[in-house]
């Protein structure tokens, strides 16, 4: 939808090619970053990060557990850096493995979290584009990201690359630990790469639908993003992009909690509600129920799914079709594209500057200072 063209939507349009080129870059790196010994040593995994990187961790936690059989936690950087029980750090010979994600590597909280993890004996794998950053310096090993430069916009390309890096690590750990054959591992990897083509085919339709929804929803005061399992990560990213790009209130909640909390909100007719619900999800029946009651409340509803209305008993909603890969674990790689488009178009329609331009009251966060300039306490 060229009339709403902007840097963020152009980032989305670049994703199919990015999937294909980043796969070539990351596959050999993910294969070699940890030795057999290091992979066999893993008893537990902690994924950490802030912002989009935290969403990437949430998007891949289930993949780590399903592919490797290793218990995996997503822990926010401030929880790991300030609260996580010391007794559980550095156990069983450098466990848990802490995988910390930050493309810039400069966030103070992630730096603090990995310093604390390292101090108490954890093995730290940094996933970053900056080896000289605090994250890079405090990591035992680094999976180096190389994301080609692009027009600045709320993180879209970097999110995809973070998700891909984590998925490739999960596949590698499972392969080396003989959870499946090398052929199976290559099939998982092919599924990642193939999503570039699948997304390319669906993007035009996706752009049209998002533009129509953005036009209808642009004046809404609030947006509600809902999902469960790894779809929750996509919902989480959606609310983040609305805040960053459009500067509007947005919430994220899992499908069950929506029935406990968010559905109470008044002015439901002006609350743009986005449900991320893949048809293979164990939580799909609850997603179907949520669509039904969102309609009872007259909520404007957008459903992002690899299926269609028929998977939601024909309930009224705008359904946006996203790729249906062979293996559901790879869905988070592309299912976030519509939430980024929606945020990009709303920002464009209301004339909002990304991140408020770090001007006026927001000038304190210029250059990322709001997250890089923070006291670091390593206990």
């Amino acid at each position, binding site marked *: 939808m060229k009339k709403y063209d902007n840097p963020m939507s152009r980032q989305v349009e670049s994703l199919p090619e990015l999937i294909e080129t980043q796969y070539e870059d990351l596959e050999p790196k993910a*294969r*070699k970053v940890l*030795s*057999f*010994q290091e*992979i*066999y040593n893993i008893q537990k995994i902690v994924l950490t990060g802030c912002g989009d990187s935290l969403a990437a961790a949430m998007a891949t936690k289930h993949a780590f557990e399903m592919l490797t059989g290793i218990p995996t936690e997503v822990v926010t950087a401030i929880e790991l850096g300030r609260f996580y029980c010391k007794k559980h750090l550095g156990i069983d010979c450098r466990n848990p493995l802490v995988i910390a994600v930050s493309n810039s590597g400069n966030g103070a909280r992630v730096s603090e979290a990995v310093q604390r993890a390292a101090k108490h004996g954890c093995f730290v794998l940094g996933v970053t584009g900056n080896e000289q950053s605090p994250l890079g310096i405090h990591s035992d090993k680094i999976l180096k990201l190389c994301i080609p430069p692009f027009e600045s916009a709320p993180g879209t390309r970097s999110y995809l690359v973070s998700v891909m890096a984590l998925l490739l690590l999960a596949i590698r750990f499972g*392969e*080396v630990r*003989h959870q499946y*054959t*090398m*052929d199976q591992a290559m099939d998982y990897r092919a599924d990642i790469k193939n999503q570039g083509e699948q997304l390319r085919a669906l993007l035009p339709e996706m752009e049209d639908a998002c533009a129509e929804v953005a036009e209808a929803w642009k004046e809404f005061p609030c947006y509600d993003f809902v999902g469960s399992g790894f779809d929750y990560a996509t919902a989480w990213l959606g609310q983040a992009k609305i805040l960053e790009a459009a500067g509007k209130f947005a919430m994220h909640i899992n499908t069950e909690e929506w029935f406990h909390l968010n559905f109470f909100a008044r002015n439901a007719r002006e609350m743009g509600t986005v449900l991320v619900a893949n048809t293979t999800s164990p939580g799909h029946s609850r997603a179907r129920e949520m669509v039904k009651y969102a309609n009872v409340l007259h909520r404007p509803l957008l459903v992002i799914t690899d299926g269609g209305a028929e998977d939601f008993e024909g309930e009224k909603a705008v359904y946006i079709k996203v790729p249906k890969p062979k293996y559901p674990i790879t869905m988070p790689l592309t299912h976030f594209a519509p939430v980024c488009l929606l945020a990009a178009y709303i920002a464009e329609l209301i004339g909002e500057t990304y991140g408020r331009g770090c001007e006026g009251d927001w000038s304190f966060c210029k250059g990322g200072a709001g997250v890089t300039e923070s006291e670091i306490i390593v206990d």
Partner: protein
Amino acid sequence: MLKNFKIKTKYNDVYDITKEVRQTVEESGVQEGICIVYNPHSTAGITVYSPWDPDGFLDLDEEIRRLIPTKVDFKHQHDTPQDAAGHVKSALLGISNTFIVHEGKLLLGGSQGIYFLEFDGPRNREYFVKVVSD
């Protein structure tokens, strides 16, 4: 004459291919010559072993594992420990065997069978049988 055979293997398994090799020799019409059995893989082997006691294969497997254990400190870390061990096993045991064709038949002793050895798997594998006349 060159003939190709496909097999779908299981992890670390043994496949008796004697019958296929014998048939290929007979179908070739070669009366006197040689027969080469070859596998184009680097984590599988071809060997001759006694077919009479199935437990013998357990001995073979155990001894191969004892000599070349699957371990995590192989220098070759591109794939998996099983794969790295498989490369060494394949190199030491060999990927082909040559047999004599005499009077139109495979010259094989009474307690000799020809076996395809999978050192990784499950995989889609193949092997070739080439029969050459004198």
